[in-house]
């Protein structure tokens, strides 16, 4: 399962990535936020660890999506 998280700030993305790495997701990586998900030109994080709302996102996390084929399914929103 792959996920993608979008953020309000670049700092939020970096912090999220660090948390993912600390949790053992060595494949987690920064990428430009997909056009469909964000109107900012900010960064996103793609990861494969099962999403856990209690340990992963913080106030700077905007949304988290599960990637299924070419679709993004929202699993978390902080709007």
């Amino acid at each position, binding site marked *: 399962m792959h996920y993608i998280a979008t953020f309000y700030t670049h*700092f939020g993305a970096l*912090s999220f990535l660090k948390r993912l790495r600390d949790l053992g997701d060595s494949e987690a990586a920064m990428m*430009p936020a997909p056009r469909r998900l964000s*109107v900012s030109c900010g960064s996103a994080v793609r990861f494969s660890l099962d999403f856990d709302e209690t340990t992963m996102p913080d106030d700077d996390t905007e949304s988290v999506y599960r990637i299924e084929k070419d679709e993004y399914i929202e699993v978390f929103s902080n709007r």
Partner: protein
Amino acid sequence: MKKKNIIAVVVTGVLLGFAGVFLMTKGNPGNMGFCIACFLRDTAGALKLHTAPVVQYVRPEIIGFIFGSFLISLITREFRARGGSSPLTRFFLGFMVMIGALVFLGCPLRMVLRMAAGDLNAWIGLVGFVGGIFIGTLFLRKGFSLGRTYEKNPLEGALIPVLQIPLFIMLAVSSPLLAFSEKGPGSMHASIWISIALSLVIGIAAQRSRICQAGGFRDLIMLKDFHLFWGNAAILGVALVYNLINKSFTLSLYHQPVAHSQWVWNILGMVVVGLGSVLLGGCPMRQLVLTGTGNVDSGITVLGLIAGAAFAHNFGLASGPDAYEEGTNVVTGGGTTPNGRIAVIVCLVIMLVIGIAYTKKNLKSKKA
């Protein structure tokens, strides 16, 4: 999906490159078919925020750009009023980005259009722009953040986009409330209908593609991702070919339209623009597009850009084009001003202070 994103960015770049030369052939100033900084400066002059008589004209390109982004974001339901991310700091960053741009004589868009017309001073400016972006990425890597945005009343997000309507009407009827340059770059313009139509289309394309000139280099440096960068390449490629066909390409440091050849200040001016754009999260063009989508912080930044333009002309910070001894490349006047040179250094120092002040030393390893 990624391929579609790249196509959207390239199409927007093609439109910008085309408009940049086409609008020049229709009356806009030399190598200034489209320039966000210059056109905001001209609009500031038309609103009498500064009194430089040669740069006063409400540029319909700015109106179309913001309004096109506004319309398409309403249609696609992406319009969302949001703000509250260090607005005053953003205002001053926008203010300083404009000062850097007016010392160089152009925003990143005009820099690329000048490069495509053979202006070697703009290629020198590119070094500064990329250098500034690189410094900005160092701050981002260390945890720089102006803070998150929050939902706002939709009216707040729509204020600046909707204000473009009365501004356009005033322009269309040549309202005596506005100032209109009778000579100089401000007096040179394409038909308002051509300009508004083209800029509306480009505003729509820019909103859909998320094109960002600073973002292109930032993502290349930080993420090794090219997709926004292709926008810059498309602007350059299309404008270059169009200039060659139009016979408006002259490879030289000298006698370039609305340009000066003081390379140190061309570089440093664009360092300010590049660094400021990364700290703001987008170049001046991107700030206009985000304003159209309801981003109040970008609206504040645009107001900062306008205030910076007015200040730059009221206090003699803006550069002027080189003046030459007749028939030679000997520069006899124009270029940067002492006030402009001091302002660029001060802006750089303030931006570094902002960069340090908003950098959180430790990335949050635990959920806050």
